[in-house]
C-alpha cells in the first residue's frame, strides 16, 4: 500500500508542480474584478496560456509583492504602486505601462429619497453620509478627494465621509442604504447588481487628475514572455473596447 502510495503522491505533486509552472499569475486591482475575467478567458482561448488572477486593493497587492508573493504581472489601479515596485528593483521595465484609465462616478440608490445623482447632490444638505474609498491608498479615493477640493466642498463634506477600505466596500456602504451616495468607480457602477438598484453620474474629468492604471511585469518571473503577451493583449483595440464597455477609458482616448 505505502509502496504504491508514495510514488503516486510524488507523481501527483509533480503534475501539480508542472501545472503551477504553466499558470500565469496576475495580481489585479479590485476595480478590475467585474471586467477582467472574461478578457482572461478570451486570452486563454487565443494563446493557450492559463491565467490565475487575484483581485485585491492595489496597496495590499503591493505589500504582498514586496514580501515575495509570486506574481508574474501586476495590474494596478494607479501608477504609484507599480512605480514603488520598480523602485524596489522588482520590475523588468523602467516605467509602468498604462493599460487603461479609471472613471469616477457619483452613485446613489434609486430609493435614497434624494434627487438623482449630479454635482448638485454633493451640495445638498440632505446628503448625510458620503461613501468614499480610503484616499490614503485607494486611487479612486484620492480622485474623490480631488473632486471635492476642486468644488470647494471638501471641508464641508469631510465630517460626513464614511471611508471604506476599497471601492467595492464603498459601493456596499451605499447599496446597503447606510450611506446616501458614494464616489465609486464606473466599473463598479456598471455591475448588474448596482445597475439594477441605483443610478450614477459621471464626474467631469477636469475635476480630478486622471486615474491612470499601470501594469508591470516582474523581473523574477519565469513567465515574462507570457506576461508581456497578456499586456499586449490588453492594449489591443478589441480588448480596449471591451474594457470601455466595463467602465474603463481606453488609453488611446483622450
Amino acid at each position: 500500500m505505502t509502496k504504491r502510495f508514495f510514488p503516486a503522491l510524488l507523481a501527483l505533486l509533480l503534475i501539480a508542480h508542472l501545472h503551477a509552472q504553466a499558470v500565469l499569475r496576475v495580481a489585479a486591482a479590485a476595480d478590475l474584478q467585474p471586467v477582467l475575467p472574461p478578457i482572461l478567458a478570451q486570452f486563454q482561448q487565443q494563446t493557450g496560456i492559463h491565467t490565475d488572477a487575484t483581485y485585491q486593493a492595489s496597496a495590499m497587492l503591493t505589500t504582498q509583492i514586496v514580501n515575495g508573493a509570486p506574481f508574474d504581472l501586476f495590474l494596478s489601479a494607479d501608477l504609484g504602486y507599480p512605480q514603488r515596485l520598480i523602485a524596489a528593483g522588482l520590475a523588468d521595465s523602467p516605467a509602468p505601462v498604462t493599460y487603461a484609465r479609471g472613471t469616477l462616478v457619483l452613485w446613489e440608490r434609486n430609493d435614497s429619497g434624494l434627487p438623482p445623482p449630479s454635482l448638485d447632490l454633493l451640495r445638498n444638505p440632505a446628503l448625510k453620509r458620503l461613501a468614499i474609498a480610503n484616499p490614503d491608498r485607494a486611487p479612486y479615493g484620492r480622485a474623490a478627494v480631488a473632486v471635492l477640493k476642486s468644488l470647494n466642498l471638501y471641508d464641508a463634506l469631510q465630517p460626513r465621509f464614511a471611508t471604506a477600505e476599497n471601492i467595492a466596500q464603498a459601493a456596499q456602504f451605499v447599496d446597503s442604504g447606510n450611506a446616501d451616495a458614494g464616489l465609486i468607480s464606473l466599473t463598479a457602477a456598471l455591475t448588474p447588481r448596482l445597475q439594477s438598484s441605483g443610478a450614477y453620474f459621471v464626474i467631469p474629468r477636469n475635476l480630478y487628475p486622471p486615474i491612470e492604471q499601470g501594469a508591470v511585469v516582474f523581473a523574477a518571473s519565469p513567465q515574462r514572455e507570457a506576461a508581456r503577451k497578456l499586456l499586449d493583449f490588453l492594449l489591443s483595440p478589441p480588448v480596449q473596447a471591451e474594457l470601455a464597455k466595463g467602465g474603463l477609458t481606453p488609453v488611446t482616448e483622450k
Partner: protein
Amino acid sequence: MDWQAFALTLRLATVTTAILLAIAVPLAALIVLGRSRWLAVVEALATLPLVLPPTVLGFFLLVLLGPRTAFGRGIAVLLGHPLAFSFDGLVVGSVIYSLPFAVQPLVAGFASVEPALVDAARLLGAGSARLVLSLLVPLARRSLIAAAVLSFLHTVGEFGVVLMLGGDIPGSTRTLSILLYNQVENFDYAAAGRTSAILIVFSVVALAIIYSKREKRVSPAGGSRA
C-alpha cells in the same frame, strides 16, 4: 500615537465587555441548568460568530442594521440616528462578534460546579437568580475572569466587523486596529510599530496584573486554601 483611537478602543472594549457579561452569565446558566433540548441550538447559535469571516459578519450587520430593513429603521427611530458608522453600531457589532468568547468559558465554568451543590441549594429554596449569583458565579470566578478578559481583548483586536460597520470616522469608529491597519497599508511601518508596541505593552501589563490577583490552585495535600 493617536490617543483618541486608543481611548476609543478602551471605551468600546469596556462597554462591550460589560454588556457581554450581563448577557452571557444568564445565557450560560440557562444552557447549563436548563432541561430543554432547544438549548443545544441556543448554544450553537451563540457560538456561530466564530464561523463567519468577520468582514462577512460585518457586511450582514451593515445590511441588517441599515435603513433597508424594518429592524434597522426601528433602531434608527429608537436611537435617533442610524447605527452604522457610529460608536453604538460598533458596540452592537462587537457584542455579537465576541459573544462566544464570553459564553464558552462561562458554560465550561458553570458546568464544572458540583451538581450536588446545585441540588442542595435548590432544596434549600434558592431561586434561579440566587443560584446563579450566589453559587455558580462565585464558584466559577476564574471562568468569569476568563470570559471578561477574552471579551475585552477580542474587542480590542476586532478588525473585520469594525472595518465594515465603522467607516473609519476619527473619534467615533476609528479604533486602534483600524488605525494600525491604515498605517501598515500606507507603508508607515514605523508608526505601525510604535502603535503595536504600545498596545502590546499595555496588554501584557494589564493581563499580568489581572492574572497575579487570581488565587492559586492549592492541592489538597498542600494544606489550607487561600
